[in-house]
């Protein structure tokens, strides 16, 4: 997120510079892709009822609310085959470190499998796990990484 802000700031300063040095304007508008993925992320979150799904402690199975969100996510992702997605899984706070990593990976995999089941091309999706190493435990998050 911070990186994105930085890119926008850079793009802005480049535009300022090009006003002073007209020959730079041949490069065209800077970094439209970054703004594009941000817009896509906002649209994805709004239209699929959220990027995050939650799991009960120690559990990797998908509850009904999780399936609802993933179904909406799948519908959106099928309309945007150009978007590359990573599903990030998190473990539980009370867990030991390595088990939490495995649980996070399993949750991400459960969510990914469900998206594939609903017709999202597997090539569009990858998974990773944050274990219990980052704030926001007991969930998995579908993150739009970039567009192809």
């Amino acid at each position, binding site marked *: 997120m911070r990186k994105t802000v930085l890119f926008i700031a850079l793009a802005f300063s480049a535009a300022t510079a090009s006003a002073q040095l007209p020959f730079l304007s041949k490069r065209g508008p800077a970094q439209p892709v970054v703004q594009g993925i941000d817009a896509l992320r906002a649209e994805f979150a709004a239209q699929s009822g959220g990027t995050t799904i939650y799991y009960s402690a120690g559990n990797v199975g998908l509850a009904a609310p999780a399936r609802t969100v993933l179904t909406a996510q799948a519908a959106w992702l099928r309309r945007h085959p150009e978007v590359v997605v990573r599903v990030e899984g998190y473990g539980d706070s009370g867990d030991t470190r390595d088990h939490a990593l495995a649980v996070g990976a399993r949750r991400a995999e*459960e969510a990914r499998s469900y998206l594939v089941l609903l017709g999202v091309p597997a090539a569009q999706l990858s998974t990773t796990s944050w274990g219990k190493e980052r*704030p926001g435990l007991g969930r998995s998050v579908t993150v739009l990484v970039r567009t192809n």
Partner: protein
Amino acid sequence: MRRISLTLLLLGIATATHAQQQPGTPAATVIAVPPLTSPDSGTKGNQMLATGWDATQLIVSDLRQTPEVMPLTPNRDDYYSYPEVTAPTFSKWRSAGAKALLTGFVQARSDGRLTVGCYVYDLDKGRELARKGFVVNPNDWRRAAHKCSGLAYQAVANAPGVFDTRIAYVAENGVGDGRTRRIAIMDSDGYNHRYVTSGSTMVLTPRLSPKAAQVAYVSFASGDPSVRVLDIESGQDRPLVPNDAISFAPRYSPDGSRIAFSMMQGPNSDIYVVGSAGGLPQRLTTSPGVDTDPSFSPDGSRIVFESDRGGSQQLYVMNADGSAERRLSFGGGWYASPVWSPDGEWIAFTRRGQDGRRIGIIKTDGTGERMLTTGPGDEGPSWGASSREILFQRAGPGGRTGLFRVGLDGSQPRQITIPQDGSDPDWSGVMD
């Protein structure tokens, strides 16, 4: 230990007048450690004597940390001549209440290095128990002193000492998403503390090779958590397995030739083993669910690990080729992160229950389970080379983490001093 108590028993009458031991505590063997001497003369001799005095104080401070050995406070005036190193006056130390004696010398070599020689004697029997010489660079005199401490501890307590070992851990700074984590390595007494990763990527669970020359660890450098191996001296760093699967929980075999670890395949975490220099990983477990945290037995023939195949996390043991799996733990709660003790007797683990996470030990046949800590935020046990102490991580209420060591003798855990927060400690074996 058995040998010493026998000695005490036989000489009980002769030693009855020496009231050096604290009543009620198991007999600690009193050892005299007079200042190391030197065969050198002149300025060089004075330098060597100064180093010898520093080494003497370090040896005493090493031994004082153990419950089994009680060093007498050294007196700088107790210098003896070089020939007396191998022919000490036993009666003097006997009458001071000691049962063992450590003598030694520091000698300058023509190549600029030092020879540190150490001799351990049984004062009651008037005979030598052990001797060893160590050649080191002048800057490494601490290691030679730690080696002398280890020689004395082995002779008296009948177990390897933890003095000449290293500790690796994850040094943590900052809060939340901005928290940086670097792998730090230090001598077991806190000296030579240094960082071996930069802090730009998240790292977890450093695991030292038996002689502490390499460290296997989990890095998020590629985006996914995966095991990498770092050579500490050269700084060379490589992935353990050249694929993009999620891998974690590395642990060296006791001879350093293999690394067992977990790898995800789809929703499955299974245990694999691979040569520590590389090669094709061999899969050892196939059950659905999470199999992780493998740890080798000291002879390398078996592996203890945790699995949630039965519904909750429990400890299992299998042969190192994956055959003959059997469940080891049957108590309440969840059992995790097992580690086999260097002497083969015990398995340390983290147990999760209503009262949080605590460190415990269990015999390799599943009996004798005992909790060593009260929690509630303890995890990640690692054995000291003596098999009598365990290093672990404790998280406080605010999420701050620190490193603690606890003995098997029922004593309270002691926090060890590090420059910042720390987690995932790993204690090496005795170095060469």
